[in-house]
């Protein structure tokens, strides 16, 4: 890419937008920017440094997300991308954007309650059904199809649904 006539701020913006367009492979309606997984994008010369943070320690999506970021940057003309993982400050569901929460709900996954703290792990007061909005819901299983979700059921419309766990 010819960088000479593009300002550093513009270049950084392009790199950020490319990286931010990557979606979570397990929840494809959310971008890594919505999730709060994308922490930093820096451009130094031809080199792009991207920092991401894992949601859960063992989240298997992280490797794929890193690969997708490299590919997205390459499509945007950045050939020398370096992805590193940062752990601090630890990710919590509070890093998820408002936009992200809305997209989750529209997709049929109850978003995490803005919280937080460790007690949020326990006393989940009420979770609204993403289909009908009723708060007459119950937990079926504490663990769901991915590390970040639990399985719930709505007692009003009878639909089972995923709940993005507070963390």
């Amino acid at each position, binding site marked *: 890419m010819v960088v000479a006539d593009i300002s550093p701020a513009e270049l950084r913006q392009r790199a950020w937008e490319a990286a931010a367009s990557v979606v979570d492979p397990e929840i494809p309606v959310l971008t890594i920017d919505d999730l709060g997984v994308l922490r930093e994008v820096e451009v130094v010369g031809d080199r792009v440094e991207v920092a991401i943070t894992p949601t859960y320690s063992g989240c298997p999506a992280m490797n794929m997300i890193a690969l997708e970021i490299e590919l997205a940057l390459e499509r945007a003309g950045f050939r020398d991308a370096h992805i590193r993982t940062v752990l601090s400050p630890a990710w919590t569901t509070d890093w998820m954007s408002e936009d992200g929460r809305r997209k989750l709900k529209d997709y049929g996954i109850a978003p995490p309650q803005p919280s937080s703290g460790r007690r949020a*792990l326990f006393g989940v007061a009420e979770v609204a059904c993403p289909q009908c909005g009723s708060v007459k819901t119950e937990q079926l299983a*504490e*663990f769901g199809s991915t590390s970040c979700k639990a399985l719930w059921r709505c007692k009003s419309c009878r639909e089972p649904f995923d709940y993005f766990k507070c963390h």
Partner: protein
Amino acid sequence: MTAPSITVSETPLVLYTLRRADDALILGHRLSEWCGHAPMLEEDMALSNMALDLIGQARELYGYAAKVEGRDNDEDNFAYLRDVRQYRNLLLVERPNGDFAHTMVRQLFYAAFADLYWRGMMGSTDATLAAIAAKSEKECAYHLRHASEWVIRLGDGTDESHARAQGAVDDLWAYTGEMFSVDEAERGLIDAGIAIDPTMLLPEWLSIVSHVAREATLVLPENDWMQQGGRDGRHSEHLGHLLSELQHMQRSFPGATW
């Protein structure tokens, strides 16, 4: 062709980090052995999810140990290319799964400790360990809740489930003391604020476990003789069998990827 074992320069911080990494990997592997065999689908997912959390914690810890050691070792070498005597995990976590009650009581004993331990380690003067702790404590708190609910349900369930849960408590109790042991190598790290003193966690651990046992109508043994050895590489026969499965591929086909 087989891959030989690596050598490790066990400075106090490398050893300390490997011990915690090994706890997480071995317990994670044990839980993964349930995959496809759990009593019901939801529990299959729960056990696999907990295994995933623990293996994730192990990866972060191995990665840090490799960085501190500063040689050619990496997370995969630590996991796949150390012999049983080089493993430093607690004897508790290598105990065979046994029946579902044994697995859940083992999980309760470990998670009640790990939850307190990682919460304490969030204040470590070592920034990486503190960051790993901040992720791990949330996960272990969730595991603790899950294991507690099961132990209560099994203990306060049928005669059969009660007998099995009580049997598991009796069998595993002697392996709990090792979680609170401190040796010379760790004393220096505790004094430097890098590690916390696990003996300080014992009263609260006992209170949590006693509370669950009471709800579950289970009796904790009076016996306070505790088995030790895992931290120094002296293991039960079970770990060798576990490693032969865990390491088989990398030992037989060194560096294999797919």
